[in-house]
C-alpha cells in the first residue's frame, strides 16, 4: 500500500529552484532516507512534505492530498523532528511533549486527561520519566532529541519526518535514537522519511535510499544500488571505498589522497 506519494514536486526559494521535479513513493510502514551533498534539497523536500514551504506538484499520504489540508489536520497526519528544534525557555519536558497534542485540542483549548495519558505513556517509551519536570534548556543533546521525538510521537501521526535527527549527537546516542525510531516504526507501523548525512548509517536504517543532487533524484533503490563508488564519486566529489560488512550491510569508507582503488577525485 502506498503511503507517501510525491509527484513532480518542485520548490523555489528566493527565485532559485531548490527541489526540481522529484517523484518518489514510500510504502506504508517503511523507512526511506534522503541522502545527497549539501544543498541537494533534502531538508527542503522534507519541509515541502511537512507543509512548511510552498511547492508545485502533488504530495499525498494514504491517497489524501496534503496540500489542501488545514494545519491541524495535516499535523495529525505528518509529524516532524526538525534538524535543530528550538528549546523554549522555561518549558519543562512534560509541557514540551504536550505541545505534540496541539492538533487534537480545540483552537483555544487546553490539554485533557487523555492528552496527559498520551504524554504519560511516551515519557516511559522514550525514558524521559525522570526528566519530566526538568526544563528542556537543561537537557543534553541526546536527552533533548528524545524529547523532540516524544513530541512528534504525541501527534500520533502515521508519517514521521526526521531531518538530520542525529546531527548533534555522538555515535552512541545517534545509534540509540535511530534504533528507537526503527522500533517505533515496526511497533506502530509508522512510515518514516529521514534526511541523513552519514551514508553508512543511512544504508543501515533505511529500506530505501534516495540520492538527491541539485534538487533532483540522481538515484534511488536499496543501499547496495545507491551507495556505489561511482555514484558517490560523481555526485559528492568524494573518494570512497564501499565495503560489505559480514551481515551484508554497506560500509562507506572515506579515503585520503591517491589511495588505490579509487579512479578519480572530485568531479
Amino acid at each position: 500500500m502506498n503511503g507517501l506519494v510525491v509527484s513532480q514536486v518542485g520548490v523555489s526559494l528566493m527565485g532559485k529552484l531548490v527541489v526540481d521535479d522529484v517523484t518518489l513513493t514510500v510504502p506504508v510502514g517503511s523507512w526511506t532516507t534522503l541522502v545527497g551533498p549539501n544543498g541537494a534539497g533534502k531538508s527542503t523536500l522534507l519541509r515541502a512534505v511537512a507543509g512548511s514551504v510552498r511547492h508545485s506538484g502533488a504530495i499525498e499520504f494514504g491517497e489524501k492530498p496534503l496540500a489542501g489540508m488545514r494545519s491541524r489536520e495535516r499535523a495529525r497526519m505528518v509529524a516532524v523532528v526538525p534538524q535543530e528544534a528550538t528549546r523554549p525557555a522555561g518549558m519543562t519536558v512534560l509541557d514540551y511533549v504536550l505541545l505534540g497534542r496541539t492538533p487534537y485540542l480545540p483552537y483555544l483549548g487546553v490539554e485533557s486527561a487523555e492528552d496527559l495519558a498520551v504524554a504519560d505513556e511516551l515519557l516511559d517509551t522514550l525514558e524521559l520519566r525522570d526528566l519530566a519536570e526538568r526544563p528542556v534548556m537543561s537537557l543534553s543533546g541526546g536527552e533533548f532529541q528524545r524529547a523532540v521525538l516524544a513530541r512528534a510521537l504525541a501527534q500520533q501521526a502515521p508519517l514521521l519526518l526526521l531531518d538530520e535527527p542525529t546531527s548533534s549527537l555522538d555515535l552512541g546516542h545517534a545509534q540509540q535514537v535511530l534504533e528507537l525510531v526503527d522500533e517505533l516504526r515496526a511497533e506502530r507501523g509508522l512510515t518514516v522519511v529521514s534526511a541523513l548525512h552519514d551514508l553508512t548509517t543511512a544504508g543501515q536504517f533505511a529500506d530505501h535510499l534516495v540520492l538527491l543532487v541539485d534538487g533532483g533524484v540522481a538515484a534511488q533503490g536499496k543501499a547496495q544500488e545507491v551507495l556505489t563508488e561511482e555514484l558517490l564519486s560523481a555526485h559528492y566529489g568524494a573518494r570512497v571505498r564501499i565495503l560489505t560488512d559480514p551481515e551484508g550491510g554497506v560500509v562507506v569508507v572515506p579515503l585520503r589522497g591517491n589511495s588505490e582503488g579509487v579512479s578519480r577525485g572530485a568531479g
Partner: protein
Amino acid sequence: MSSVSPPPVDEPGGTPELRPVRLPRRWLLLALAVLVVVVLLAMVTGPAGLPLKSVLVEIVNQIPGVELDGGLSERDAAVLWKLRAPRIVLGMLVGGMLAIAGAGYQGVFRNPLADPYLLGVAAGAGLGATFAIVSGGNRVILPLAAFVGGIAGVAATYALGRSVGGRSTTSLILAGVAVAAFLTAVQTYVNQRNVDSLREVYGWILGRLLTAGWSEVLTVLPYIAISAGVLLAHRRLLDVLSVGHDEAGTLGVPAARVRLLVVLAATLGTAAAVAVSGLIGFVGIVVPHIVRMLAGTSYRIVLPLSALVGAAFLVSADLAARTMVSPGELPVGVVTAFIGAPFFTLVLRASRRVW
C-alpha cells in the same frame, strides 16, 4: 507555600502525577493581595485624607442591600467615588491592558523588546491626538482621534511590512520603525506650526490618568474587555509559538492567523488605553518580564499575572504621580519609567536569563 499546592491530577495507571504548567496559586494570591493593598492605599491617599475604615465601609456599601454608616461626609464620599475611584479603576484597566498587550506582542514576535507601542500604535495615536488638540476642537474627540490614529498606524505598518517582506516578523518590526519615524516627523511639523498648543500636546504624550467621573472608564471598558479576553484565550497557543512559527506550523497551529489575531487584539486594547491615558511607557515591557523572571515563562502564567501586576503597577505609579509634588502632579508616564527602570534592573540582576 506547599500548603496551597493544587490537588493531584487523576492519572490513569496510578503513576506519579503529571503536572502540566499552570498558574501557580501562590503567585496569583500574592498578585491579588498586592493589587488590593495598592488600591486601598490609593483610595485613602490624597489632599482629602480619608480614613481606611470609612473607605472599607463605603466599599462594602456598594453591595446592594447593605447600608452602613462609614462616617464620611457627602463631600468626602463624592471625592472617593467621583474622583479617586474612577481614576484608580482607569489606572487598573490601562496598566493591566498595557502589560498583557506587551506580553502578547513579545509572544508572537518572540522578541523580548516588543512592546505595546511597537508597530506604529504610539506614533499614530500621538499624531491623532496632536491633530485633535491643535484643531482646538472639543476635548471629547481626543480619545477618538488617538484611537483612530493608533489603528491607522498599525494598518500602515502591516501594509508596508507585507509589501516588502511577506510574512516575516523582522520586516514587520522594521516597517513599524519606518512608520513611527514618519508619523512622528509629521507630528513634530504640526507642533512647530502650532506652538501655542505645544504644552498640551506634550502633556498628553507624557501620559496621564485624568478622569471626569466614570466616562473614560466606560469608554475603554468594552475594548479592553474584548482585547484582554482574546489575549488570555490565546495563552496556550502563545506557548506553542515559542518554538517558532515553522515548528508551530508542523504542530498544527496556523501561526500567521494566531499572530494576526493576537496583534489585532493587543493593538485594539492599546489604542483604547492610549486614547484615554496618553502614552504611558514601560509598563508593557517591564511588567511581563518581571512576571517571567519571578513566576515562570509560560503564557498561561505570564498573561493573567501581567494583567494583575500591570494594574497594581500603574495604580501605584499614579499614586506617586499625584502625591510626590502635591498639590501639583507629575505625568504618570514619567513615574512609570522613573520607578520602573531601576526596579527592572534590580530584578534583571537578581534572576536568571529567561529569553
